[in-house]
């Protein structure tokens, strides 16, 4: 490493680099550079898409198998969970969301928490001391990325499962409003999960804590409450269950009739969106107040 060379550079004419005011598009560009230059974010994004397509293929194959096996078709038709989701081709190609949501949640939380764990946040806020544009830019980057990746994943899933679902007599019907709503809902749901998780990451600031919380919210609690509601008739348990962020939000992906124990698709999504907005507001307020 040479220090002599820089010393001689000082004698040259002073360079005057162009430095422009900070604007939201510039902060957005900065956040996009940060997002795409980390291997972990790139890999998590790729894995999310692969999981979506993989589950679509698996479910389509199962449905195809079920058409040849009457007992299996019977069993599926009587499963209450499957009834609520709706037994359509759309159900098959969106199925991966329940696993993709964990990858999306972790990815979105890490966009903020990795800055705190590495100290990067101090460089970030020294360059953009107002802070809220940074939060906004991170939100745009993660939400747009999720929308694009999930849309592409669903398109790929649609194409690769097309012959299988056709053979099973369950092709995705893009003229059916409910199925279109479910497909778009899958994109919307995961994008909202990303925004929700970004807010949780901003509030908690620690990677491990944020990931633990999100896994609990989107994975552990729904399992616990599905058991509790199945085992007892307690009204409070039913209400807690139907108002859980994932249980409420994922109603938008279903194509079946709404059971009494769950919310209508758009109502459910509105509940998740409400939580998300509240968390984002809290994140914005604390981000401005706390020391970086």
């Amino acid at each position, binding site marked *: 490493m040479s220090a002599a060379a820089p010393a001689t550079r000082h004698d040259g004419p002073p*360079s005057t680099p162009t430095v422009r005011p900070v604007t939201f598009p510039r902060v957005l560009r900065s*956040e996009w550079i940060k997002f795409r230059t*980390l291997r972990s974010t790139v890999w998590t994004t790729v894995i999310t898409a692969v999981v979506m397509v993989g589950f679509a293929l698996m479910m389509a194959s199962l449905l195809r198998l079920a058409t040849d096996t009457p007992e299996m078709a019977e069993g599926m038709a009587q499963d209450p969970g499957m009834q609520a989701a709706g037994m359509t081709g759309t159900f098959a190609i969106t199925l991966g969301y329940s696993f993709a949501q964990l990858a999306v949640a972790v990815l979105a939380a890490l966009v903020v928490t990795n800055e705190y764990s590495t100290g990067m946040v101090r*460089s970030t806020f020294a360059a953009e001391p107002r802070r809220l544009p940074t939060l906004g830019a991170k939100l745009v980057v993660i939400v747009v990325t999720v929308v694009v990746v999930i849309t592409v994943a669903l398109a790929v899933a649609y194409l690769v499962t097309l012959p299988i679902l056709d053979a099973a007599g369950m092709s995705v019907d893009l003229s059916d409003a409910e199925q279109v709503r479910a497909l778009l809902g899958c994109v919307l749901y995961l994008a909202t999960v990303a925004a929700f998780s970004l807010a949780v990451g901003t509030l908690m600031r620690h990677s491990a804590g944020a990931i633990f919380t999100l896994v609990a919210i989107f994975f552990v609690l729904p399992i616990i409450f599905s058991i509790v509601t199945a085992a007892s008739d307690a009204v409070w348990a039913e209400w807690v269950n139907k108002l859980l962020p994932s249980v409420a939000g994922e109603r938008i992906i279903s194509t079946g009739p709404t059971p009494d124990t769950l919310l209508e698709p758009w109502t459910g999504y509105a509940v998740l969106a409400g939580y998300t907005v509240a968390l984002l507001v809290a994140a914005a307020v604390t981000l401005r107040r706390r020391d970086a």
Partner: protein
Amino acid sequence: MIEARGLTKRYKDKLAVDDVSFVVRPGVVTGFLGPNGAGKSTTMRMIVGLDRPTAGTVTVNGQSYARHRAPLAEVGALLEAKAVHPGRSARQHLQALAATHGIATSRVDEVIDLTGLTAVAGKRVGGFSLGMGQRLGIAVALLGDPRTLILDEPVNGLDPEGVLWVRNLAKHLAGQGRTVFLSSHLMSEVALTADHVIVIGKGRILADMPVTELVDGASRRTVRVRSPQQGDLADALRREGGEVTAADDGALEVTGLDAAQVGETAAAGGVVLHELTPLASTLEEAYMALTADSVEYHAGDLADVVGSAGGPAGRSAGPDAGTQAEAGTR
């Protein structure tokens, strides 16, 4: 230009910075000197808006940092080596920060070149040594060609060549009329680099003066004098207002009079002198004397170290060393 007024920062029950006011002027290198834990980093973090002051205000070039439209053009800050994600390369890190201010890639390459990082610019920062991380931090600080530079312990982890480079860079930038505010817990470093010094201890400003004045004034000057007529000389010096103590080896140590006055007093009294030595105090001694009460993390035997290594001049700081010992036993 940095102006702090009544700046205070309290963390839960600890007062890190206590009602601090100072001005850092352009065109000179201002050293920010203090023991570890004195509040230097906290003060610098408040300047760039990373920490919110509990009370008081601080402005940079006339405005609070966050109100500037292009903050990186106002202040370049090296606050901590490796405020960087280890998974990105040095160039990617700089490009991400440059993007916020629409700074061209050519400038990114320029600061990489300037800080001697060209060979490693494409490597992930996680593998960087402390010195390389420090150079990257300085590259970030220079990115926006700022009017004010804040460098928190810039020479930490640098090799001797790097230390020299930082010193020259700081002086060069100040020479261009920029404000350079550089912290260190090493008084020798500040003596070599800075023109002006602000000394902080336990969150309070202990001194704010030109470096030369700190060396000259903060610690009393001592003159060492030896004479066969020890007693007569001592009496004569006391009459002139000097304070005289006998040293271990039979010489006298005089404070309150300079060497010329001691010589003239001796001549007037017809006293023969065998030795007349002005003992210049170093910045280090001045600093020790200033911060003796305010050192946050005392080594148990600090007073001993000062007493033996300081030699005759060290003894002139006797009362201070005593205070240190007391503080150390607390």
